[in-house]
């Protein structure tokens, strides 16, 4: 079962990675360079708030910026964009519920506080399918 959203990066305005979840850890160096370059360009475009996307190799990347925090996710090209957007929206919502934007005014740059985010974004559908696979399928 392929996940709707595969990898996630959450960065602040200064470029610090607050949280990331990468499923495919073997990323080609050249690909990573191209990815960073594309992200840099798109992040600049996303000065305020909005959504942008691009395709690289076999994946589709979607970026969105809220309250100065940049959310980058990728998915398979085959996955419907609407589903990816819905899940990204849910991730953004959960992030600001757990870490309100006001928190970043006094934040001491300690990224360890975001480590727990993993437990909150576990896709409930994926969770259900995992359970069915373990017990029945």
């Amino acid at each position, binding site marked *: *079962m*392929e996940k709707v959203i595969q990898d996630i990066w959450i960065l602040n305005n200064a470029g610090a990675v607050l949280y990331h979840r990468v499923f495919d850890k073997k990323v080609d160096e050249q690909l990573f360079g191209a990815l960073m370059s594309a992200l840099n360009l798109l992040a600049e475009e996303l000065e305020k708030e909005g959504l942008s996307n691009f395709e690289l190799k076999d994946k589709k990347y979607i970026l969105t910026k809220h309250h100065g925090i940049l959310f980058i996710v990728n998915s398979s090209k085959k*996955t*419907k964009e609407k*589903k990816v957007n819905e899940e990204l929206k849910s991730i953004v919502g959960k992030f600001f519920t757990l870490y309100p934007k006001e928190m970043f005014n006094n934040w001491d740059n300690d990224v360890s506080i975001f480590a727990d985010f993993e437990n909150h974004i576990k896709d*409930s*559908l994926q*969770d*259900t*399918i995992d*359970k*069915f*696979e*373990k*017990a*029945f*399928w």
Partner: protein
Amino acid sequence: MVELNIILNFIGMIFELFIIIFAAVLLVLILKKYFIKRHKLTRLLLIIFLNYFLAILFSWISKVFVVSQLNVIQDGSIIAWMYNLISDFRISEFFVTIAIFLSYILKVNVFEKGYNALQKYITIIYGILTCVYVLIIYEYGNTLFDIIAFLIVFIYMVMVYAPFLRRSIESYRAVEEKTYRQAFLSLAIMSFSFMLIFLNFAIDRVFIFLGSLGFTVFYYLAWISTIVGIFGAYYGYIRPKSSE
């Protein structure tokens, strides 16, 4: 009149025998699945369907009582009480109630992230009250009490299987893989069919209350819903194979 009743029970007995065979096959397949997976949820599913199987078996036994003209003297003894509980479907309702409660646990474990405290207590209390009603609130020949028993179990079925249905449909809509879509759709059909069983039985009992001998079209619809539910369970739980 008595002969017609025996004939109707005989037809019912044969019909239910086929249901028993379907249910037994499903039970064996779940058992096989349990030996492969050794998972607590597979074990739970096995216990759920064992209860359903026992419910069907006791329903069938009640037909055997009538067809073989096996009667007991209504002297208030334990044997007479047990005979009445079996012949008026009460033992079957008891096993179904247990199965419904276990289905609630299964539903929470596969579809939810944890128990909702209020829902949990309502489900437990309602389940206990249902067991008390079906096993104790009984009067020989009182069809009204039986209709209420069927309706109580029907409501319990809806309480657990309506959310199960909703979750299955949500998952069916959200998932993209064909195998899993079919599995969730089958589970949705299973949930819907299970809810129909006791509604149909209750309607059949209403006809008995109004003077019919029973075994109306609703009796057969109830068992047809059971067959559909069994197939739904097979295609939902057993048939799909994980790609991993």
